[in-house]
């Protein structure tokens, strides 16, 4: 039987790939709904503040990257926690990955459905997005990591589309006031949580540490990625504030996408359709990566030490597809349930981003003492 080299390692990647990967993992569905939830201009400072917290977390993650356990991969985790604990944690992780995957996948599909294909059944869109993500994942971890370069370069240019919103007559400076909070509401807390969850993603990258060189510059690369993300969040949030104003911002479900609809071009009337379709490049990367982690997690949780198989991976992808269809029908289509699901992922995303590196670092310290 022909081998399925899903988790092969032929060479170690440079830290620059961490920049591309992390930067794209932090620019998913939450980034698109961020202005609707943040609303108030003073949340710019919150983005920067949470960005600083994210930087501290990334320093912790980079410490993990430089440890000898990171290079060992699964065996490194077993040495730290023991096999039984690793299997239990992997089992718990499956739920977390599935939740993250569902929110980003269903969120993106909803945008495509709303702006490009209103007449098409979302199930078909879920199928096609998952299909292309599975294709990326089926090429293995190495190719998926390399694909992050393409994902980054094919989507980073979209920022330039928002420059016109900074220029008059659309932009009014007073839309950026007040910059100092006069009150702190429950919605503000929700915004803070959303930003934290948006910054998450590196806690999944750390499981790919065996594929990277043990480099002292890891923290530098993480910092660059984090810096790019902070800039993108702030840039896009300010653009949406200047365009809508704080009062009207909460009324739009996808403010950033709607802003692109206003852009004019001599060739195309609706640039937003192209932009949304192009988003698939980095959504498919993120979903492909999560699929790989999910399949890896299933194998660890099931205690499977054999080579990965095509049938196993296909079965995993089919289960994900069925789960997504069910979640879409039961949870996503109903607005209140959708909000609850998004909120749940916000809490879990923020918590895992904070806790996973802390737990790993604590385990490293403990192991160092013993």
């Amino acid at each position, binding site marked *: 039987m022909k081998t399925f080299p899903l988790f092969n390692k032929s060479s170690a990647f*440079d830290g620059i790939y961490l920049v591309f990967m992390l930067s794209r993992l932090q620019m998913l569905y939450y980034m698109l709904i961020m202005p609707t939830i943040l609303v108030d201009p003073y949340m710019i400072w919150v983005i920067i503040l949470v960005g600083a917290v994210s930087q501290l977390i990334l320093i912790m993650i980079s410490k993990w990257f430089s440890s000898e356990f990171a290079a060992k991969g699964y065996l490194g985790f077993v040495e730290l926690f023991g096999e039984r604990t690793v299997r239990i944690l992997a089992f718990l992780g499956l739920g977390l990955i599935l939740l993250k995957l569902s929110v980003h996948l269903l969120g993106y599909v909803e945008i495509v459905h709303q702006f490009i*294909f209103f007449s098409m059944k979302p199930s078909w869109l879920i199928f096609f997005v998952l299909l292309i993500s599975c*294709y*990326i994942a089926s090429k293995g971890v190495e*190719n998926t990591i*390399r694909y992050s370069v393409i994902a980054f370069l094919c989507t980073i240019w979209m920022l330039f589309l928002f420059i016109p919103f900074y220029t008059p007559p659309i932009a009014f400076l007073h839309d950026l006031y007040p910059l100092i909070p006069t009150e702190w509401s429950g919605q503000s807390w929700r915004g803070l949580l959303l930003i934290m969850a948006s910054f998450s993603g590196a806690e999944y990258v750390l499981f790919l540490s065996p594929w990277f060189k043990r480099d002292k510059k890891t923290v530098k690369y993480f910092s660059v990625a984090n810096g790019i993300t902070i800039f993108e969040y702030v840039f896009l949030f300010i653009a949406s504030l200047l365009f809508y104003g704080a009062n009207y911002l909460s009324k739009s479900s996808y403010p950033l996408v709607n802003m692109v609809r206003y852009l004019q071009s*001599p060739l195309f009337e609706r640039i937003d359709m192209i932009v949304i*379709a*192009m988003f698939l490049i980095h959504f498919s990367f993120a979903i492909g990566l999560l699929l790989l982690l999910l399949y890896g997690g299933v194998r660890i949780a099931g205690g499977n030490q054999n080579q990965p198989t095509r049938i196993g991976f296909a079965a995993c992808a089919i289960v994900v597809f069925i789960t997504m269809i069910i979640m879409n029908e039961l949870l996503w289509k109903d607005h209140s349930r959708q909000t609850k699901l998004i909120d749940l992922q916000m809490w879990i995303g923020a918590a895992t981003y904070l806790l996973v590196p802390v737990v790993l670092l604590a385990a490293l310290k403990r192991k160092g003492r013993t």
Partner: protein
Amino acid sequence: MFKKKGNDGNKSIENQPLKNNGTTITSDALKRHLANMDDAEFIERTTDKEQKIMFVYIRTLIDHERFNESIIQPLMHHSCDLIYECITTSKVSEINTMEEALSQLLQGSILINDPIRNQWWAVLLQNPLARGIETSETETILYGSKDSFSEVLEQNITMIRRRLPIAELKTEKFTVGSLSKSTVVLMYIDGLTNPEFIAIAREKIKQINYDMFLDSSQVATFMEEHHNSVFPQFQQTDRPDVCAYSLGLGKITILVGNTPFALNAPVTFFHLFQSPEDYINRWIVASFLRSLRYISFLLSLILIPMYVALTTHHYQMIPLQLLFVLLESRGKLPFTPFWESFLILGVMEIIKEASLRMPTKSSQTLGVIGGIVIGQAAVQAGFASQVLIVLMGISAIASFLVPNYLMTKANTLIQLMILILSSLLGIFGIVLGLIALLIHLNSLTSLKQPYLAPLTPFYWKDWMDLFIRGPLVNMKSRPEHLRPLKKWRYSQRR
């Protein structure tokens, strides 16, 4: 004077299996092996010293004039003791086994028997049957050298050696094909090319096990790692300057006997967009032209699918003025945009293929018929819209901007795939198709090296010669993704 012995006397042994491994050479054994070969000749001649010498050769493979001048004449009036000393040609070798004898015969050698010493000699006198050095037809350029490879392997090696007159330029010879016995020559610059590439290529050539190789592309097929891809994983070229440049960068070159196309590897997707003229033009002009090629490639892929996507799914994307033009043009068509495009694309491919297969003069007529008559007639008959014909024309011309013809061919199939996706999913389908293409390219390798380098793996220093062609004075180092042993292109780093 010559006594022709013929070769049809041993009919009783015709059907016997040929066993030639290591057996002693005798004229009888040779006759057995060459039975039923009309062009195999055995002649015996008596010299002035009354010495009988036997010559064995295959008439169609040898140069008769040189045979007369450098073998017959000197031997006729020889004053030397040894036959070997009389022969006035340099390629003389002693042969001891039947296997060697047959191999030499089939290469165009004349076997000479020295009866005194009971020794056989092989004198290589190949028939110089070859066309001259001509201009490349597949990779034409305005400026730069005009010569191209021919079917003569030695001549091809000479053309490269003249461009790289260095002792480090190594050539390793292999024979592949149980029937064709094709000679494959692996060329590289020792101390510059990464030894890993050489070892992989050497190993892959040795592993080739097939009967016949009529072209270098067939050798490439056996060396490729991804057989089901439409993309060439070896750069096939008939230009010696391209080979010399590739060798200088740290690649390997493979030459195959009886074919004018050499193979360069490892190749990347971006190498296929580079033309020799890029390094002759001013860097700004070259960069512009190279960028134009990439844009044209993309246009040729998505222009028709875009038309189908917009007219089928996304009318709202078309500006109002353009929409009026389109409605007028498509108003009376009986086909959906997909079928309209599919049919015209099919006709276009038929015309392209026919123009390649027909004689040059006929193909010009065909171009006129195809381009004007069919195009105009299709519109008037109501089979296609004028907009589509215009887009089809642009798309077809754009596809030919890629210097590599194999890439142009791949282009059509990809376009068809994206066309189907665009009819199903519109813009989303086009992006889906392009992503699938990028994923496929990302997973391809050439000599086990990534096909999308230096984009992914990311080597930003190599970007100087990627989408643009930077000034040569600034391109101080060789491409990092080829991992050459000598990094700098200057003999002394400035």
